[in-house]
């Protein structure tokens, strides 16, 4: 029986706590008597018969939906869209769950005589997936059967000929999605729900949409009113996507949603990484030696070598649920399953929230975690991993640990470089930079070219990363990054600190000397349920 997540009060006997620090790790001693640590739950028990569970979900759908086989007929247009490289994190060991689901959907389609099938990576404004990445997601068999015939491809949000405008929501939001998906008799969406933000109408209304459509919810106002964007019912981001979903439905787009959830088995139970999944006071001698050896080895390596090692890591994620059918009904179950793994009850807010940021976020798979992504992971994703209210009080301090190198992947993140060099040099205020620069970057012809033909994130993407942190920026009194490149941290508008102790000292200027401290022991992922 896996143990749930919990909150540990730090006392003098509490051992140093693990902080992820990019591709490195730190052990930090938190001040006793005023610190606490939120630990994630242990990995939920996985489904034993994965293929059986998938089959069962497809033939016994949830909500107002017929079984998948009943929706398939000869001569129909079938489109299978699937989540892109940003999910899951880290990428999972083969076979990827998308492959398992898609293979069964295709088997059913073949049995029903469906021969007009397209597979589309629903990447919205993310970078295109490479052949290797597509093969990893859908498997070699599917890739070889479809890709050579142009039937398996990346969504292109800048291809006007292949976008369909479906109408506007009652709030005036334009809905435009991939034309093939919109005009299919059935759109099957295959998702991996790693956090509660994912899935639901966001899969199609965001994953298959265009800038014209996305801008209605990927903006500062929406993000500042999503408290948090991990909690669908308190998230304006989701409200907008759900309104768009209604437009999709009303315009006749028939969606069969397949959502999957995975457990917290990120680092496995074997190998040197396994220790990262254990609670520090339960480390045995072997764990300690293993950790120290790993840490010493990593510390001696070049940053490039460390990055290569970590980016090659494939996680042993295990499936905990699969549900299929009508989008909203499916997503209710999915969200409940995600929260079952992630939610940790937390009483009250803290003055200082600490977190160690790992080497990966949704936008640097096989890439570089640049400073903008550091900001997005910390102030966007991790800060928003709450329900109720943020674990840190308004005006409190966020301390993040990450090397934050002034380094960018030029192929993947070209507009990020300009955003960092030009926009952030002028302002870090999300509203100001949105008003002054977003349009210019969104419509830049070179970025558009690189997004469509190379492997670049869309020109506007760094703005979205910044908006993702807008709620946190509004909420927090100070942000400190420990161990980061000083110039890069300052460019982000944050304060650099050499050590956690220095950071706590700096934080005392804002929240006083006896401030309470809460450490978010993430990853594996947890979501604070703050009352």
């Amino acid at each position, binding site marked *: 029986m896996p143990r749930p997540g919990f909150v540990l009060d730090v006392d003098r006997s509490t051992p140093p706590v693990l902080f992820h620090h990019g591709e490195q790790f730190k052990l930090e001693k938190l001040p006793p008597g005023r610190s606490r640590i939120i630990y994630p739950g242990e990995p939920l028990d996985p489904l034993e018969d994965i293929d059986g569970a998938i089959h069962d979900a497809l033939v016994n759908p949830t909500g107002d939906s017929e079984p998948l086989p009943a929706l398939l007929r000869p001569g129909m247009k079938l489109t299978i869209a699937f989540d892109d490289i940003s999910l899951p994190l880290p990428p999972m060991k083969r076979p990827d769950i998308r492959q398992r689901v898609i293979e069964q959907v295709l088997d059913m389609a073949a049995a029903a005589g469906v021969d007009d099938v397209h597979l589309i990576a629903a990447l919205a404004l993310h970078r295109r997936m490479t052949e290797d990445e597509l093969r990893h997601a859908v498997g070699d068999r599917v890739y070889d059967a479809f890709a050579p015939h142009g039937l398996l491809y990346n969504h292109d949000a800048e291809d006007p000929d292949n976008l369909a405008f479906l109408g506007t929501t009652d709030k005036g939001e334009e809905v435009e999605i991939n034309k093939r998906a919109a005009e299919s008799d059935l759109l099957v969406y295959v998702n991996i729900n790693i956090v509660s933000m994912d899935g639901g109408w966001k899969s199609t209304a965001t994953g298959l949409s265009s800038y014209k459509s996305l801008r209605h919810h990927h903006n500062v106002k929406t993000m500042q009113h999503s408290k948090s964007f991990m909690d669908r019912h308190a998230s304006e981001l989701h409200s907008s996507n759900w309104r768009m979903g209604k437009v999709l439905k009303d315009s006749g787009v028939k969606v069969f949603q397949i959502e999957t959830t995975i457990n917290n088995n990120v680092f496995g139970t074997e190998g040197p990484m396994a220790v990262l999944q254990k609670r520090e006071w339960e480390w045995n001698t072997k764990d300690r030696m293993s950790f120290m050896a790993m840490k010493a080895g990593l510390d001696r390596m070049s940053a490039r070598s460390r990055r290569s090692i970590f980016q090659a890591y494939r996680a042993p994620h295990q499936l905990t649920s699969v549900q299929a059918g009508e989008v909203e009904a499916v997503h209710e179950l999915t969200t409940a399953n995600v929260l079952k793994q992630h939610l940790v009850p937390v009483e009250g807010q803290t003055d200082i929230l600490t977190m160690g940021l790992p080497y990966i976020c949704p936008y640097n798979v096989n890439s570089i975690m640049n400073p903008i992504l550091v900001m997005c992971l910390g102030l966007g994703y991790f800060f928003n991993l709450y329900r109720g209210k943020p674990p840190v009080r308004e005006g409190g301090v966020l301390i993040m640990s990450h090397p934050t190198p002034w380094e960018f992947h030029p192929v993947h993140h070209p507009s990020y470089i300009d955003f960092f*060099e*030009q926009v952030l040099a002028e302002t870090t205020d999300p509203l100001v930079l949105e008003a002054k620069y977003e349009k210019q970057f969104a419509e830049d012809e070179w970025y558009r070219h690189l997004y469509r033909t190379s492997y670049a994130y869309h020109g506007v993407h760094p703005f979205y990363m910044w908006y993702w942190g807008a709620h946190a920026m509004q909420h927090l009194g100070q942000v400190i990054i420990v161990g980061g490149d000083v110039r890069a941290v300052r460019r982000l508008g944050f304060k650099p600190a050499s050590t956690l102790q220095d950071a706590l000292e700096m934080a005392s200027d804002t929240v006083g000397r006896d401030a309470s401290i809460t450490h978010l022991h993430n990853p594996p992922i947890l979501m604070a349920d703050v009352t």
Partner: protein
Amino acid sequence: MKALRFERNVPRYAAAVAAGRMMPGAGAKVGPLRLRDVDPPDLPGPDWVRIRPRLSGICGSDLGTIDGTSSRYFEPIVSFPFVPGHEVVADREGTDGTDRVVLEPVLGCVTRNISPVCPACARGDLGNCERIAFGELEPGLQTGFCCDTGGGWSTQMVAHPSQLHVVPATMSDEAAVIVEPTACAVHGALAAIAGGVADTVVVLGSGTLGLLTIAALRHFTQAGTIIAVAKHPVQRELALSLGATTVVEPAELKRAVRRTTSSLALGDGHIDRLTGGADVVIDCVGSEASLAESLAVVRPKGRITMVGMPGHMHVDLTGLWQREITLAGAYAYGTEEIAVPGGTSRRARTFDLAFELVEAADLGRLVSATYPLARFTDAVAHAAAAGSRGGVKIAFDLRDEKERTRA
């Protein structure tokens, strides 16, 4: 009199080259530049006068000479031994007392007593004089490179009256010593922008010449966006205060120009070069790298003007050919044609424009430090690393030299 003299000395020259490669400015310690007690130069002609330098700047071309990095191109147009120093504000003793003057150092036909003057001098383009190795003076493109005239790095030198410009009483010595490099910048800026109008101008380098060029562009032309490239914080601040629209670090230039001009770029995320680019690039560095960078960011049919002194370099000029780029030099000064709104123009001597600009933009503030002659190695080292040490223009201060009052 006391003078820093540059002598022809092959072993010392070799040592300077080696030292200069190790550390810019180190050539002063081991090279042919020596502090000497020498006789004052004779007056080359009856109309020449003696002047006593007050401040004399250290120019990039001086540093090139000291470290042995200057091209051998100059050999026939300099004469040894010479006293460097061509950025000079000095005292002139006249019958009506002493006045302060700024030296216009080009040694053209008039100073060489050549008559009739060459076509360039006749046009007023002194910097293009065709007789700089002829006439009654030894070869020397400017005072400071000619053995007959002395130079500003001494307590006494000679000058032809045609070379001297009276300094207004309200102008400080620091402002006055900036007039000569300002004239170079004014000439460069006006040469770079035909008709005085350009949407996007890049100024590569924000040392003295780069900063003055930015000021000149803002004051005398209709340049739209000026993108300055600066390495150091003080340079960045000054570039902005003198009129740059944007200041970027060297590695950021291609992206900044691309953004400004909405150009496309070649290179998959990396930018090798732009397909469009800036209308005008003014290279105030003059290195192989700066010329290559200029070629990468200038638009087809654009213009690159080299204001910084170049030398031998290996640069791929294919783009110059394929994109029909104009590569031009801008040296010294003379007479300028300035576009005036309404389509007309006016002619003015570059030095007169430089005086105007120095006062208008308060350019005397660019003088960051001064040294006595005895500390010339420190002065040269400081000048060679001025940017990284938070400075811009380094000069010799001769006002308190004891030797200055000797006959």
